Every structure is written in structure tokens, then in C-alpha cells.
């Protein structure tokens, strides 16, 4: 491993330039740059940690950092330093990071509120999808009824029925929960039916010669057989659910990340809007990282 490549040095020169720049007063007066500086330190620490711990190509990692620092530099120069951008539409990085420092409690509550909905949606969506998909996939009569129905209903984008559901349900939170459950349920249900029907013939024969009951077949053979694909599908599932969740929250919630963003959009406070968008990105990244850990920890058999 050669972590100290040319890219490594360029990345650090760019970072140094950024740190110097934020301490020089520019054309535009901005908030205290401490929060932005702290953000830069956190990013650098994550980068160094990845460089030391992971065996991923260190060169690519440094190249990514070059791109990231360049973007932040460009942002800093065009706003704070030279004041070239629209003062309301494009906030300076100092101000955006300042939002994290001052409104962390509001943001954290928003994240918690969103995660609660997401958790309920994912658990029930996957639970129903797998729980119903297995018997429907396995028992030919049920499959012949529900597979065509699932084929028709699955492709309807949740965006289409989300506003209607929000109007229909008594509370907003119940509506968002239903939207996320449906977003996850149909694709899971359909893919489980397909997966059960494409089970490896060898495994099926081995189970059949043991003369297992339908109940045992579903619980002991089909369920463990589909779990890896459910977990690997979780990444896509989580991403689409966050998408639907923030969309739903923008439609009429009073809390959550989506609400935070749409609320400040209405007030034209784009500093907070940009902070909210960055936060959503961070949350999705952390969720994906958690899914990776689940995937490694739970599937021990291959």
C-alpha cells in the first residue's frame, strides 16, 4: 500500500488552502467559520481512518478527496471570498455548517422522527412482503391468483398515490407509514414469489425427499433460502424508502427531514435547505453502511 501518493499530497494542499481561505475575511460577511472548520476536520479524519483501516485502493480514496476539497474550495471562493453568487439562493459554506452547529437539536429530532417512520415502514413492508410472498410463491393455487395481481400493482409508482393516501388517512404519520409500507411491500412480495419459483432444483429435491410439510417447507427451507436476497435488496429498498419518506414528509408533515427542508424552502431560507439536503445524504450513507454490517453479520453460511 502506498498511501502517500501524489494524490495524497494534492488533497492535503487543497485542504490547507481551504482552511487558510476560511480564516481570511472575504467580500461577504458570514457566520463564525468554526463549524465549517470542524466539518473539514471530521471529513479529514474519516478519510484518514479509511486510508489506514480499509484495503480499498488508497489512490481512488485520495482522488475522491481531491474532488471533494475542490468542490468545497470552489463553493468557498465563489460565495464568501468573491461573492459571485446570488446571496439568497447560494448560501456560503460557513453559514450552512453553522446551521449544523446551532440547530443540531432540531435536525436530530427531525432525523429521529424520519427514522421512526422508516423503521416501521421497512419492518412491516418487508415482514408482509416475505411473510405473504413465501406461501403465495410456494402454493400453486395462491400463486396463480396473486402473481398476476402483484404484477399489475407493483409498477404503480408510490409517488402517484402518496398524496391521495395522505388525504385519505386520519393522521399524517399513519399516511406516511402506509406509503412506505406499500413502497417496500409490492417489490418485496413480487421478488419473493419469483425467487421461490426459481429455487435451485437440488435444494427443492432434497427438501421434497424428506417429505416436509408446507409449513416446514416455508419456515425451514424457503425462508432461509430467500433471506440473503432480501438483505442484499435492502440497500435499494432503504434508498427508495428514504426517497418516498422525504417526499411524503414534504406533502404535509410537521416533523422529519423532509418537513425541515420544505418548511425552510417556503421561507426561502436556502441556507437551512442546503444543510437539510446534506443531512439527508449523510443519513442515507449511514443507513447503507448499517445494511452492509447486517449483511456481513447475519449471513454466515456462504
Amino acid at each position, binding site marked *: 500500500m502506498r498511501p502517500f501518493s501524489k494524490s495524497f499530497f494534492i488533497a492535503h494542499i487543497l485542504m490547507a488552502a481551504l482552511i487558510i481561505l476560511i480564516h481570511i475575511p472575504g467580500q461577504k460577511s458570514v457566520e463564525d467559520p468554526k463549524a465549517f472548520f470542524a466539518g473539514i476536520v471530521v471529513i479529514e479524519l474519516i478519510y484518514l481512518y479509511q486510508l489506514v483501516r480499509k484495503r480499498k485502493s488508497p489512490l481512488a480514496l485520495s482522488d475522491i478527496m481531491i474532488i471533494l476539497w475542490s468542490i468545497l474550495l470552489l463553493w468557498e471562493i465563489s460565495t464568501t471570498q468573491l461573492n459571485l453568487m446570488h446571496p439568497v439562493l447560494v448560501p456560503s459554506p460557513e453559514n450552512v455548517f453553522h446551521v449544523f452547529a446551532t440547530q443540531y437539536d432540531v435536525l436530530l429530532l427531525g432525523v429521529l422522527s424520519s427514522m421512526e417512520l422508516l423503521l416501521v415502514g421497512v419492518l412491516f413492508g418487508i415482514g408482509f412482503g416475505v411473510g405473504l410472498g413465501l406461501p403465495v410463491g410456494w402454493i400453486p393455487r395462491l400463486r396463480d391468483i396473486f402473481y398476476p395481481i402483484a404484477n399489475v400493482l407493483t409498477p404503480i409508482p408510490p409517488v402517484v398515490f402518496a398524496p391521495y393516501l395522505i388525504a385519505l388517512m386520519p393522521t399524517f404519520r399513519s399516511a406516511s407509514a402506509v406509503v412506505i409500507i406499500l413502497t417496500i411491500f409490492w417489490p418485496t412480495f413480487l421478488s419473493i414469489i419469483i425467487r421461490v419459483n426459481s429455487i435451485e432444483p437440488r435444494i427443492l429435491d432434497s427438501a421434497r*425427499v*424428506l417429505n416436509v410439510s408446507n409449513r416446514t417447507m416455508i419456515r425451514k*427451507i424457503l425462508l432461509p433460502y430467500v433471506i440473503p436476497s432480501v438483505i442484499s435488496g435492502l440497500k435499494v429498498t432503504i434508498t427508495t424508502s428514504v426517497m418516498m419518506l422525504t417526499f411524503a414528509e414534504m406533502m404535509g408533515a410537521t416533523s422529519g427531514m423532509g418537513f425541515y427542508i420544505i418548511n425552510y424552502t417556503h421561507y426561502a431560507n436556502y441556507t437551512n435547505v442546503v444543510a437539510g439536503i446534506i443531512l439527508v445524504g449523510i443519513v442515507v450513507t449511514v443507513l447503507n453502511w448499517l445494511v452492509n454490517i447486517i449483511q456481513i453479520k447475519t449471513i454466515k453460511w456462504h
Partner: protein
Amino acid sequence: MSIIDIFHLTFSYKNNNRYETVLSDLNLQIKEGEFVCITGHSGCGKSTLLNILAGLLLPSSGRVVIDGNPLTGPGTERAVVFQHDSLFPWMTARKNVLFGIQQARRELKKSEAEELAEVYLKKVGMEKAMDKYPYQLSGGMQQRVAIARALAMDSKILLLDEPFGALDAKRRKELQQLLESLWDSGNGKKTVVFVTHDIEEAILLADRILFMRPGRIEADMMVPFSRPRTRNREKILSSMEYKLLKNKLTDLFYLDFDLELEENEAL
């Protein structure tokens, strides 16, 4: 008294709007406790016959009676070992055997079944790898576990479809010896139907060898050697009777081959 009775068994399947006949008007009786090897070229229908006995395929016509009951599908009075991948990949060796026991012997308590699983895994020499998953085991070890499961189920009939076909010569010999000793030692010998295309393996293991030509049984011969045989492998392989039997089977294999050649030339 025969435990497997097959009367006028025919099996055919539809392929491109044409019926392909795999077995036609096959009759066979297998006695309780008999070790029968079925051999023949690929495509002669030997695996199809075994899959019918396992209940995985249903006869197109004819009657199969297992232990007095007409065959309707799979059942745990018959234990099956395939050439490979008979184990469930998400269960450890121990869990695989335990699962088989629980399906076949529902009267046992969980603790008794667990004990039994260990006993059989020890019998096949897997005591050190009981908690490993199939992907962590070699092909030979996986077959040992599959055999342990089949034996632990205490089924009257063992159906084996080229169980050692994917193993190297050394493992194959080890497992032949293991199978023979386990079959020989059990109280009340199990009936074994063993599909193989290895002539030496058939002669060493079987009481009776069936040679199949596409669709039917061409030859039915008894094997005279006393047991145990696999431990006296060299002695048997060098005996006159062995050579005679082997020549007979080899002739059957090659006669088939010559017929095919003539057919091709005629075309």
C-alpha cells in the same frame, strides 16, 4: 419377500411435442435387505428409475409398490443421497442431520434427536466438523454428512444416485468402505438401491447388479463374494470371479457402444 415391486413401469415426458420414452414396461422386484447397484450408460434411465423410487417423478403408467403400499410421492421410509449438494447450505452439518431425523422420526424428543445426530456424524468420521456449514466442507465430507443424515433417518430403503461420482479415487474408496461397514453393521439390514456407472464400485458393493439399456433392464446378475468386501478389496479384485463379472459387465457396456457405432455407420 420383496420390499420394492415394480410392475410394467413406463416413464415418458413431452419434449417439443414429442413423447420421449425413458423407461418402458420395466419390471423389477427387490428383496428386503438387498444391496442393488443399477448401472449403464448415461441416458439409460437409471437416474430416472431412482427418482421415481424417491417419489420425485411419477410413473406415466405401471405400478410401483413400496413395502406393501402403492407409491404416491416422497416418503421418509426412503432416504435419498444425491451426487452432490444434498445438504441445505444454511444449516451446519449437525443441523442438516438433525433436520432429517426430525422429519423422519417425529416420535423422538429434540434432545434424543440431537444425540442421534451426533452419534451418526461420529460414525461417518465428522465429529470434528459438526458445526461447519456445507461450504466449509470438501465434497467428500459433504457426502459423509449426507450419508449420516440418510442413515440417521432410519429409513428402510436407501436410494443413492451416484453418491461418490464427484469424488477422487481415494475419497471414493474410503466412502465405499464406510458405506459397506455401516450398511453391514446396522440391526436389520437396509435395502439399498445404488446408481453408479463405475463397474468396480458396483461389483464391490452390490449383492445384485442390474445393467440397464435405454428404457429396460438388460441383465440382472448376482455377486457372489462374501462380506466385508471393501476391506479385502485387493483380494477380491485379483480373484477369478471378479474378472469374469467385470468382463461380463464390460462386454455389456461395449456391446452397447458397438451397436451405436453400427447405427451411426448405417446412417
